[in-house]
């Protein structure tokens, strides 16, 4: 038997409201994940209550700013700063914004676009 799978779609604007709703229902935030797509980044928000997981797929077009959920789930700063640094998604109203200094990598981030190609070329030739 596989673990129960619940994936739902959500718009970027609906994220903070849904987070507040889930918090009020007693859900724990599990993680936020970034996936680079064609012209957009997909975010997967996961929450748990009583060992039951629910995931929300949020498609964020490049350049779109997403409202932070740190006012509701402060611990989300870890994921939001990681996604900002590595996937170049902007979060506004963050309770703890590192402004691109959370992941102190030697290679310049985010890894997309011409800068990523240049970084990859540099890595290969090193």
């Amino acid at each position: 038997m596989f673990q129960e799978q619940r994936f739902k779609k959500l718009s970027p604007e609906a994220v903070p409201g849904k987070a507040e709703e889930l918090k009020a229902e007693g859900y724990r935030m599990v993680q936020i994940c970034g996936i680079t797509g064609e012209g957009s980044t997909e975010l997967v928000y996961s929450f748990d209550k009583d060992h039951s997981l629910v995931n929300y797929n949020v498609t964020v077009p490049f350049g779109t700013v997403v409202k932070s959920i740190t006012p509701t789930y402060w611990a989300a700063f870890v994921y939001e700063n990681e996604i900002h640094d590595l996937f170049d998604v902007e979060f506004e109203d963050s309770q703890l914004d590192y402004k691109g200094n959370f992941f102190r990598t030697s290679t310049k981030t985010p890894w997309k676009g011409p800068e990523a190609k240049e970084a990859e070329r540099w890595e290969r030739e090193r």
Partner: protein
Amino acid sequence: MGKRTIVPFGPQHPALPEPVHLDLELDGETVVRAVPSIGYVHRGLEKLVETRDYQQMTYIMERVCGICSMGHGYGYVNAVEGLMGVEVPDRAKVLRVVFHELSRVHSHLLWLGLLADGMGFDSLFMQCWRIREKVLDVFETVTGGRVIVSYCRIGGVACDLTPEHISMILKVCDEVEKEMDWVRRVFFLDSSVRNRLIGVGQISKDEMVELCGVGPTARGSGVDNDARSADEAYQALGFEPILYDEGDCYARCKVRVDEVSQSIELIRKALGDLPEGEWRVPVKGNPPAGQFAFRVEQPRGEAYYYVKGNGTKFLDRARVRTPTNINIPTMTRMLQGCGMQDVSMIIITIDPCISCTER
């Protein structure tokens, strides 16, 4: 109010087994605020999914961390099996549990040693690591590897256990259990351990829930979110999570000491009722388009695995959210108000794994 000072802590520090940086804002000797930053051992392992197929990614995932290697393999293969709809034989499920619990025993013994080392109790440190070697001997005998055991495969496990292997595991369980009696007495009763840990780095159950903490760190504050409770393989063994309510460094230590004994008991039960039959099924084809999430209780806490397939042999995404990732916020809260002398103890008691966190 005294003058506020910022003290940089790490990334290179004797108390840190791995590099993480903290800016500690101090008022005299008291920590007012701790701001962490990471990235010093980021290896881009998840990005390798673009150039390694879903089978090869098993070996990549096992190398996210040396200590949790078994757990990472366990989580990743379960996620891929879920995506592909592969039914794993019952014997393989139980064998995975046995190895996962052996992995928890060696991880907790490693951590207990690091804790003892952190407080300057060197003989206790060496005893814990000496006991741990017995478990690594089992890994080496069965799989050939002491650190990266590479035991999980998509569809089952790498090899079956022979009767000789089972005898060896049960013998090691007996030996570790006997030695743990002494270790438990020292950790629970020795005044130097108690004085160093009791009341230090306290975090309440409500705060832990608020910060979404996981693993022994959360269970030391009485929060029950052990992913094994929802795992059918563990339910069959009558698993019950170990909880302490005090929420200090001492409670987090007690959870881990007790979990070593609990894991030994789970291994005995699992091996005593090991199903007969296949231990691996062939897996053909590519993962279909779709997504699957799987959670596993690693020694450090709940880990989350997410895979997204596209119908080819390459996945679109393989994501790992490790326990330390979510325990960083809890650690920063524990540090608020503590003395500078307790910072290293508090960091150690969340059992941080920075390699896991950064991937």
